[in-house]
């Protein structure tokens, strides 16, 4: 069952939402849609100008959004992200780990992959979410509720040649969500992994420059589906991994 728009707004209105990777693509679309449903949104991205523009556009249409320039791959940024976000919107009810990196492009065979690329992918795609969840999930457990969403990829389950650094990091991210879910079972804090499939984003264009864009999903449509999942997440077992392409397309 996909919840109706009003039901979505009932669940999300007034909630504190922190979305990483909010400067463009899926993260920006998710920020817009959460704000339209009444969430108080904090968007994080490395590039100040991009994330400011997204937050500014949300405020223009009457939503609440705050931009924060920070790098989830840097350990020292985690406390800053959690601190600023909770200073601005209060306790975080929804944390979306959307920021991700391919390691470097063009994608390479493992035999050609510099150590540094895997280190970068793990730092941004695994350590970053781990650190930020640690700073937010305890507060959620104290209040007895909260949802953390990991944005993952089918590269976490399929062994695609040249997607090594990224795929390994996303597989770790999936398992991280499962372990968080197991440890926080019964606390009211839930974790979901969401695979949006191949989307028409800058990241995808960097990974697969010659892709047929007509075959790629619209990030805004995937954001809509994620917001629907958030609204009915109580009915989804914590630790689940959900492929958005398999969800009904109907509103």
């Amino acid at each position, binding site marked *: 069952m996909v919840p109706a728009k009003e039901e979505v707004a009932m669940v999300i209105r007034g909630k504190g939402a922190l979305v990483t990777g909010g400067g463009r693509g899926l993260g920006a679309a998710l920020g817009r849609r959460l704000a339209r449903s009444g969430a108080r949104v904090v968007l994080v991205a490395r590039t100040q100008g991009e994330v400011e523009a997204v937050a500014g556009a949300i405020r223009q249409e009457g939503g609440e959004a*705050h*931009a*924060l*320039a920070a790098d989830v791959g840097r350990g*020292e940024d*985690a*406390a*800053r992200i*959690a*601190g*600023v976000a*909770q*200073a*601005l919107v*209060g*306790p975080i009810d929804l944390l979306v780990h959307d920021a991700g990196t391919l390691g470097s492009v063009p994608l390479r065979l493992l035999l050609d992959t510099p150590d540094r690329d895997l280190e970068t992918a793990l730092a941004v795609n695994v350590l970053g979410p781990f650190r930020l969840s640690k*700073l937010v999930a*305890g*507060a959620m*457990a*104290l*209040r*007895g509720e909260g949802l953390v969403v990991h944005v993952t990829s089918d590269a976490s389950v399929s062994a695609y040649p040249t997607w090594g650094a990224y795929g390994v990091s996303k597989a770790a991210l999936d398992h991280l969500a499962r372990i968080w879910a197991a440890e926080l079972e*019964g*606390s*009211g804090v839930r974790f979901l992994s969401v695979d949006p499939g191949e989307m028409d984003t800058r990241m995808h264009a960097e990974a697969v420059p010659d892709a047929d864009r007509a075959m790629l999903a619209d990030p805004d449509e995937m954001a809509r589906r994620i917001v629907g999942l958030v609204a009915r997440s109580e009915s989804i077992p914590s630790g689940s991994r959900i492929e958005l392409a398999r969800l009904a397309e109907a509103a």
Partner: protein
Amino acid sequence: MTAASGPRARPGEERLLAVDAASEAVEELRLDELPRLVEPGDLLVVNDAATLPASLRGSARGEALEVRLLSERDDGAWDAVLFGAGDWRTPTELRPAPPALLAGEPVDLAAGLRAAVEGVSPLSPRLVSLRFESPRDALFAALYAAGRPVQYAHVRAPLDLRDVQTPFATRPWAAEMPSAGRPLTWELVARLRRGGVALAAVTHAAGLSATGDPVLDAALPLPERFDIPAATVSAVGAARRRGARVVAVGTTVVRALEGSAAANGGRIAGGRGTTELRLGPTTRRRVVDALLTGIHEPGTSHHALLGAFAPPPLADRALAVAEERGFLGHEFGDAMWISGAPAGGGRRRAAAVGEGVAA
């Protein structure tokens, strides 16, 4: 009292001095033996305030100074304490005095922040309210870029913002870490919960522990703001009804709960408030039955507060034991548990096992 010189490598190894007012027993435990002291049904209340990077370097009238932010007011101004040139490496009482600023004077701070003095306390020229020029989003971004945790000379290495957060840190309201919660781990919390202990939170804007001005130091703690969630009001009421104890984790929690009760005819109320309550031997506690806190030196307001739980001779004896056994004081130090006579002057019913137990 020897001060702990920095964050502990292994949480749970802190020592715990357990003081029971009824039996006058003083017993030494390890912190991870805390479950022995609580009973099924007891309610543990923690302060979920995160610690701000409240210290900013700056200048005014061409003189270097340090601003330590205390708390944001509802109208967006900030209460703050000014310190003269230098930094935390110099004990506060040895720091030069800051310039005595007047209302309207500008203060230039790190990361390009600018503020104007809006008011000066009659207590001390160091206690001011500041109005920042930046909107709130930019203020917090700059504060977290340039601000440092408030720190004192007994900790030698510069503290990272992560060093001064408790496991419960949520909204950044505290000028200094509400340190009683710091040594707790989620593993210990889970064990307490399995033993039937309930958990709730208040947010209390813990202030500074030293200002460098003897007059202002004598007035500590200054009025502090707090926020009590409706869920905590219910949890305290339920604990009362089942005859279980309310255990405050930290003196700030005592201040929030007793401050709210004092302002609301003896019962705590949900929502925000400010308390000027100073607790001591003559305080009649209405809500809190027991306290988990740090090892506090005589002469501090924290130490005076212990008198609200145990007669001063017993509190002093406990402190002497802590001293003799080499317990460490200050924010990264060891812990003390004091269970007092039941709050509200009533007699406690036997705890009802299994009732109202959190997951």
